[in-house]
């Protein structure tokens, strides 16, 4: 039977942990709301850009030159060059299964690949995983912390990926990130990013393009890619906080439960101690 002092100490320490996890839960809840608002505010722009691309990019299927500067982004890269994957994890731990889920998804994807690959990594935990597994890493984009994700930082990430693709260093790019479905559901996914798959629908010939198709698409396509990256990053960080909130709320509950349990043991031990002391006194008195 544990002694009273040890038990009292454990009650205090579990209580402290409970306080910390409760505070972390509250922080995660606020941050989650902030990133969610951001994601909602970004929807109209993304929707409109995607709409535009869908309607205009049909022309590219028939004639790649119609895309102007962006034309190379529709063509698959040279065989033999590695396939790039943007791997998005979190910077900090204590967010439940978030990181192990995305890591598992990445490994699944890598196992299915026949060609060599290389990673572009965001997030410290993701980088640690890549190092542990010995995966080739083309770049660790640590100057774009997810915590401060903005359209500008997403554009910078997109520029790195598009640059590597244009330079012929990689033959294709996938995004491996966590899609945010709801407060309780987030799903690790791998989505193709480059080359862009031109929609089969014919271009809307009625639309006037100023100054011309190639110029418009040449500028539209990079923007389209930037929004895709922005969304991937935003959804990842939102999922991270949803996951962290959930994990911390569970931890708080578990700590409360444990505290109750230990308190019960504590009382039992105390009770027993008193009983045995009384017994000793009584039997001592009887012996007289």
């Amino acid at each position, binding site marked *: 039977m544990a002694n009273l002092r040890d038990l009292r100490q454990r009650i205090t320490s579990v209580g402290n942990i409970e306080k910390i996890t409760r505070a972390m839960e509250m922080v995660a809840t606020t941050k989650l709301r902030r990133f969610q608002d951001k994601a909602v505010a970004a929807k109209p722009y*993304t929707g409109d850009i995607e709409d*535009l691309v869908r309607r205009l990019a049909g022309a590219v299927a028939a004639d790649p030159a119609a895309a102007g500067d962006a034309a190379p982004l529709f063509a698959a890269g040279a065989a033999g060059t590695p396939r790039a994957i943007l791997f998005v994890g979190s910077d900090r731990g204590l967010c439940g299964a978030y990181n192990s889920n995305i890591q598992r998804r990445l490994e699944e994807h890598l196992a299915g690949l026949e060609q060599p690959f290389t990673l572009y990594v965001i997030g410290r935990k993701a980088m640690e995983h890549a190092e542990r597994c010995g995966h080739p890493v083309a770049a660790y984009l640590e100057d774009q912390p997810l915590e401060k994700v903005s359209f500008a930082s997403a554009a910078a990430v997109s520029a790195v990926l598009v640059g590597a693709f244009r330079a012929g260093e990689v033959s294709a790019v996938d995004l491996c990130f966590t899609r945010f479905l709801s407060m309780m559901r987030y799903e690790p996914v791998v989505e193709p990013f480059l080359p862009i798959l031109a929609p089969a629908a014919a271009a809307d010939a009625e639309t006037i393009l*100023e100054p011309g198709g190639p110029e*418009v698409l040449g500028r539209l396509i990079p923007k389209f890619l930037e929004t895709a990256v922005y969304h991937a990053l935003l959804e990842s960080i939102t999922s991270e906080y949803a996951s962290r909130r959930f994990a911390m709320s569970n931890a708080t509950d578990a700590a409360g439960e444990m505290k109750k349990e230990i308190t019960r043991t504590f009382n039992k031990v105390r009770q027993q101690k008193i009983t045995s002391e009384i017994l000793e006194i009584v039997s001592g008195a009887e012996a007289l």
Partner: protein
Amino acid sequence: MSRTIQLRIVSPERVLLEVEVVSVRFPGADGAFGVLPRHAAMVSLTEPGLLRARTVAGEEVEFLVHDGFAEVRGDRLTVLTRSAERPEEVDLERARRAAERARARLRNDRARVDLARASAALRRALVREKYGRRS
């Protein structure tokens, strides 16, 4: 089709303006571009500059837009731009510094800088200076 245009200005971070107007002028790729109701479907590039619109109530709305796209479809005109602001919101001091920085970059190490980016930054800053002052 109606005799008004639903004007929307949208940036990646949020919807900046949503208003019903009777006419719009925006800085297109080949100079200022006017749009009246019942305009044909069109997609145009926009350059940094001042967008002006007249609302149904007869008020003038002014907005500084930066590079992006303007799309006319039906009775809707959507301007997608990386950023936009009202002339009175412009931070003149910041614009001036940005212009200086861009100029310095263009002047000094021409070989190393990304020319397109630096000149785009300079143009944005100049537009901010020009139209921000007027309010």
